[in-house]
């Protein structure tokens, strides 16, 4: 196929591209292009002759640490860690998006919260402090004059792993949550949570990536052909995913099961599927706005300059 004509082959002039690539991803629904692409051998097809090592990661920090220390060449991660590490000086470049959207803001049944304004005096949680979803919600709060206790407001904010939110709702310890999919849908389906803000109404809802494809500049510069081939696989995987929903969901559930002995209900995943958009299109301005909001919310100390973080030249090249 496409990979055999040059890219994957080492050129003879000593500046040989690597024959081995380590790729990271998270066992999560919005990582479908990565998971399905691996399961369906799409990456193998495009990276003919290259050994692909894959590594699932549990959180963005370890992913970024691995990338930064040269243990990881390329992979799928949330934009939050990519941006904060970029600003901290890490060598990281966003090559394409993988999925956009996928943030849902939900409230516990009986919490009395119907819209963002009702959060005043209540509590909510997010998977991280200053993470993608946190900034999205807090930005919306800020716009209507609500702030969290972190910066002197009356809304209580907690960091909680998405999987524990169900129990927190059940025991009425938490009123609302801004979560990545499929956890929002999961809570709606299994715990009767109500949706406060739909995924496409959240700040930068449709444009902000939930998963991006990143690598390091150093790696891209050294292996341009390889990366191009990877991007070809990436776009094909996205296409496949968009065309084969049920197949993809099964593939993801299989991966989840291998790692954790647990499958998420298919109904949840199917509904959740509609709350994200698998695409390689990155909206740089959404990223910049998100980062600016992060600064307004005092998550970061300096005004963010994301110049150079996103580099879509390669993906544009191959899509020509």
């Amino acid at each position: 196929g496409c990979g055999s004509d040059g890219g994957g082959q080492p050129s003879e002039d000593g500046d040989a591209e690597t024959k081995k690539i380590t790729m990271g991803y998270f066992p999560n629904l919005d990582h479908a292009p990565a998971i399905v692409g691996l399961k369906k051998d799409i990456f193998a097809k495009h990276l003919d002759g290259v050994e692909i090592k894959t590594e699932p990661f549990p959180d963005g920090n370890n992913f970024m640490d691995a990338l930064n220390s040269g243990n990881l060449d390329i992979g799928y991660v949330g934009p939050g860690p990519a941006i904060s590490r970029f600003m901290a000086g890490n060598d990281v470049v966003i090559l394409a998006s993988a999925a956009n959207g996928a943030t849902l803001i939900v409230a516990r049944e009986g919490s009395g919260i119907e819209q963002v304004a009702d959060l005043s005096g209540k509590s909510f949680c997010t998977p991280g402090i200053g993470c993608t979803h946190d900034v999205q919600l807090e930005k919306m709060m800020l716009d209507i004059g609500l702030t969290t206790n972190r910066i002197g407001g009356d809304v209580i904010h907690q960091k909680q792993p998405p999987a524990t939110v169900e129990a927190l709702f059940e025991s009425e310890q938490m009123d609302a949550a801004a979560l990545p999919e499929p956890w929002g849908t999961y809570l709606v389906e299994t715990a009767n949570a109500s949706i406060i803000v739909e995924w496409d109404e959240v700040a930068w809802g449709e444009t902000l990536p939930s998963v991006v494809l990143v690598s390091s500049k150093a790696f891209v510069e050294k292996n341009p052909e390889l990366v191009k081939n990877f991007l070809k696989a990436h776009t094909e995987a996205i296409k496949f995913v968009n065309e084969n929903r049920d197949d993809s969901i099964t593939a993801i559930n299989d991966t989840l099961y291998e790692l954790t002995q647990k499958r998420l209900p298919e109904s949840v995943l199917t509904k959740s599927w509609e709350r994200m958009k698998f695409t390689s299109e990155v909206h740089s301005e959404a990223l910049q706005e998100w980062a600016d909001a992060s600064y307004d919310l005092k998550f970061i100390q300096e005004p963010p300059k994301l110049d150079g973080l996103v580099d879509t030249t390669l993906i544009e090249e191959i899509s020509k």
Partner: protein
Amino acid sequence: MNTALKRFIFFGSLLVLWEVIFQLNIWPKTMFPGPVGVANALVIGFTEGTLIFATLNSLKRLFIGLLFAVILGTLIGVLLAKYKTADETLGSLVTALQTIPSIVWLPLALTWFKFSEGAIIFVVILGGMWPMIMNMRMGFKNVEPILIKAAKTMGSSGFDLFRRVMIPASIPYAITGLRLSWAFSWRALMAGELIGPGPGLGYTLMFSRDLGNMNLVVALMVVIAVIGSIIDNLVFQPTEKKVLTRWGLEKAA
């Protein structure tokens, strides 16, 4: 050469070595921060007051947790040392429980104590208790039987025997237990502050790790280390020295 000078030279050289390695650029600066950046993070944290507040809050949690850990550890230690049945049953349970990482306790802490200081302190207790249990258990088992016999012939028994013989005789073990409890309570606190209300050093740690601010991460470690050193110098070392000298195990200065 006195102690302060020795330490000054030792830590001074470490600092220089650190800066040299940092300047050599062997490892990515974002993974291996240098002393200047760390010092900077410390200065900012303390002048802006955020670190002071976090430190005080964490210390409060730590000391409450440690207090319980030490008391519980000592009591369970006695129990295990004294009653064979307890050692064979509860003792096995202790062996099992101490391998459980703090994060596994978090969900339980949440269910039992809700979002409160209690949840964090619970995790701290579970972190610091084990070294105390194990060391006190062995300390009590190692009390010379002749001393217990002697005390008994002088009418001491029960709690009096415990307080006046068992405890002082196992002080060397207790000190080691305390030192380890101290360290592992801190570690548990770092995990425990993931839940519960901020601020705190663990909370800040998590936060700065999420933002890739390695300078602040190392700065936090420096704060903890300095607090540890102060306590070690003011409490553990003098106690240890006093005990060992009295017992003739170490020469008086």
